[in-house]
């Protein structure tokens, strides 16, 4: 295939991936709509399995509310739609990956497919969905499906509509194997932080409802794992992402900057904000280990960190433009 054909293939694959993500989102939506009509006791079993697996705390007594056959049937349908959602997500990830790979092949010479904002977002969203899928079995994250697929749909749409750039070769400043290392590490860390932030949002909302006693027994929130378990999953994701982010921002970045720009730390806006993001996430990990900060306060800090991550990614290129040495990433 010629580079132009690869470029067209990539665009189509991304479009189809977005559509399948939408279908997966709808499947998860159906799953939750069906759950709403189930008594909480029955549906909680779905959620509680996760609590047990994630929490490792005392095993809660299995809730065995009397079920009529209608509820049993419903539960099967809930399970079915949940599985369909996951299966569709897997299909979408395959398409997504194909789109990303083709993007790299669409350039002569062949290059890594994360040379500009469009491609970075493409790779970052793939990072989110791969992270979600690969952690799902171990940590039983299916309850996140609706949120993750919704997030992916929105971000991919914005990516295609706002950030799209034609495929092509890179500017000389990016001709370095550090592009693969530096950006890949940033993508993986951002993916972990994004999934972690989603879990933290759910944790904060549920935690608030629990404390106020406004948790509706048939609501979405009561079907989630216990708030402590939510918080723990989020912490693990952040703990996974943080060393990788450290490597991306404070090792690979400076080494490459030294090669390309002649100085390993230039106080370039993107560097400054990567550092700010790092400091905020460090504060999150620190706060989580500080008495009185664990839980709500620490979680808010992590969300501020995610906001700073997003600002660093999008805001810097928009507001600082040519003022940033990273502006070719636009």
């Amino acid at each position: 295939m010629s580079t132009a054909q690869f470029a067209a293939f990539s665009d189509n694959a991304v479009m189809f991936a977005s559509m399948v993500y939408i279908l997966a989102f709808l499947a998860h939506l159906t799953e939750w709509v069906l759950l709403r009509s189930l008594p909480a006791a029955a549906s909680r079993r779905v959620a509680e399995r996760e609590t047990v697996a994630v929490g490792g705390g005392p095993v809660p007594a299995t809730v065995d509310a009397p079920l009529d056959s209608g509820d049993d049937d419903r539960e099967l349908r809930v399970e079915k739609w949940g599985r369909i959602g996951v299966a569709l997500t897997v299909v979408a990830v395959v398409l997504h990956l194909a789109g990303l790979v083709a993007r790299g092949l669409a350039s002569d010479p062949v290059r890594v497919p994360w040379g500009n904002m469009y491609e970075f977002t493409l790779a970052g969203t793939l990072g989110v969905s791969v992270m979600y899928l690969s952690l799902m079995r171990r940590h039983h994250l299916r309850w996140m499906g609706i949120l993750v697929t919704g997030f992916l749909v929105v971000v991919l749409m914005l990516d295609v509509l706002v950030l799209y750039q034609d495929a092509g070769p890179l500017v000389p400043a990016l001709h370095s194997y550090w592009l693969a290392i530096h950006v890949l590490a940033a993508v993986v860390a951002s993916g972990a932080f994004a999934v972690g932030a989603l879990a933290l949002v759910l944790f904060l909302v549920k935690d608030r409802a629990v404390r106020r006693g406004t948790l509706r027994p048939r609501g979405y929130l009561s079907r989630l794992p216990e708030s402590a378990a939510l918080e723990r999953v989020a912490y693990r994701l952040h703990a996974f992402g943080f060393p990788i982010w450290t490597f991306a921002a404070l090792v690979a970045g400076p080494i490459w900057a030294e090669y390309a720009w002649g100085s390993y730390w230039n106080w370039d806006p993107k560097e400054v904000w990567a550092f700010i993001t790092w400091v905020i996430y460090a504060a999150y990990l620190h706060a989580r280990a500080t008495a009185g900060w664990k839980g709500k306060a620490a979680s808010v800090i992590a969300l501020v960190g995610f906001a700073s991550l997003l600002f660093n990614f999008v805001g810097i290129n928009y507001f600082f433009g040519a003022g940033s040495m990273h502006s070719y990433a636009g």
Partner: protein
Amino acid sequence: MTLTPPGTEAGGSASQPPPPPSAPPALSPVELSRWAWRQLTSKRTALVLLFLLALAAVPGSVVPQQNIDAVKVANWQEAHPTLTPVYEALGLFTVYGSVWFSAIYILLMVSLVGCVVPRLRIYWRALRARPPRAPRRLGRLPESRTFEVEEDREEVLERAVAVLRRRRYRVDRDGGEVSAEKGYLREAGNLLFHLSVLVVLVGFAAGQLFGYKGGVITIVGQGFSNTLSQYDDFAPGKLFDPTDLSPLSFSVDDFHVKFLTSGPQMGQPESFDADLTYRSSPEAAPQRHDLAVNHPLDVEGASVFLVGHGYAPVVTVRDGEGQVAYRGPAVFLPQDSSFASFGVIKVPDAAPDQLGFEGLFLPTYGFTMERGPYSQFPDALDPVLSLVPYHGDLGLDDGSPQSVYSLDKSGLKTFDSTDEALGAARRIKLSPGQTVRLPEGRGSIRFDGVDRFVKLQVSHSPGKGIALAGVLLGILGLMGSLFIRPRRAWVRVTRSADGSRRTVVELAGLDRSSGGDLAAEIDELERLVRNGRPDRPVKEPE
């Protein structure tokens, strides 16, 4: 908890107004400093300082910084005359060297040291201590199991010790009890991470204090030797000694650039590189180096980087008396990705009047009535000089320094335009080889050809190895502190109460960090202690 005699509060308030709260006794200076030290080294303060650091870094990304882009700072200051003195007083043009920024990170470092040093002591003691004795009631721990086995106590205890050792616990046996602990490296990782922050700071500070960074524009075919006078801009560290400049010299022999000639990114540079011949010292043999972005030249004590390139049109200017008053390349600075470049040519030796030219170099000429002259493509396919000539006084004689990239027009006059539609000032357009005569017999200018220049950065950042080692150690420590789980386990065996030969085993565990799956670990320990075959492959239960 303070104990209050019952009834005092109620009785006191009923009969008489409560006595005014007595002021706490004044703190002695020692107490005060001890209190201040405790505050500073508390975790909460560390958190606040971290936030302040993040916050304080923000303005440096918004306001242009003196040591990063001095030209931008000057432009900004020109555009904001009222804000400039305020910003200057706040140090907003040099955020990362300002007093308040330094204060935050120095306080943070002090807080860090104050936090780490006592913990080092505690950790040292903990490392040599035996695992803590089993609590009296194991059943009260977060995870505990009680079960009976057929073997006698000694056998079970020995097996428990073996099982725990195999699972890399430190084990201490005391009578009918086994205490075990593992995950000592978590705190080691934690301490390593905090200490590595100091290492990074030392490395970074060394680079800032003893290093330097200079920019130089060299026309292809010309050379450079590493002395202060050769630099266009030079930013030394505070403790940098100019005699430490590495005795490097080089010449730029050739320069190659390729631009994309088709596709959506047409005009984007595909590659550019310069051929250098260099000597690391005057005695050294000359060597060649292909200098490109991402391929710097490293010699002892200095590194040379290719950071940009552009055009230097070569012109010959004759004055009104027919003498050659100027000949040579003049650097024109690229304004955008089309390499439309702006520059000036000063001819102070022209007679009777001095001459000056200001204008654009367009590597591939294009013209529309709306845009005026512009460049269609960054490569020199159809180069054109579009200049406005001036005559009069260049203002060079009073000795005040002048930029080589701008004209002081206060003593200069333009020539009248021949076509009012194109503006009031005469503008001349030159292609290579062309000569244009200036009006009023004031001379002529000939466009001889196009040279290129490269923008190089020469810098030295000592301590970068230290900083890198620090960050890598930090990541190692971070991973230890995040992923190693300190855990304690206890086993106690007692004879079965029913008088049989059976042994009652109590097994309990405690996680000293959150997030671990303690129940699974204790389940596994129970299985191993029960079935007595610890050699079986250990499989984590799902």
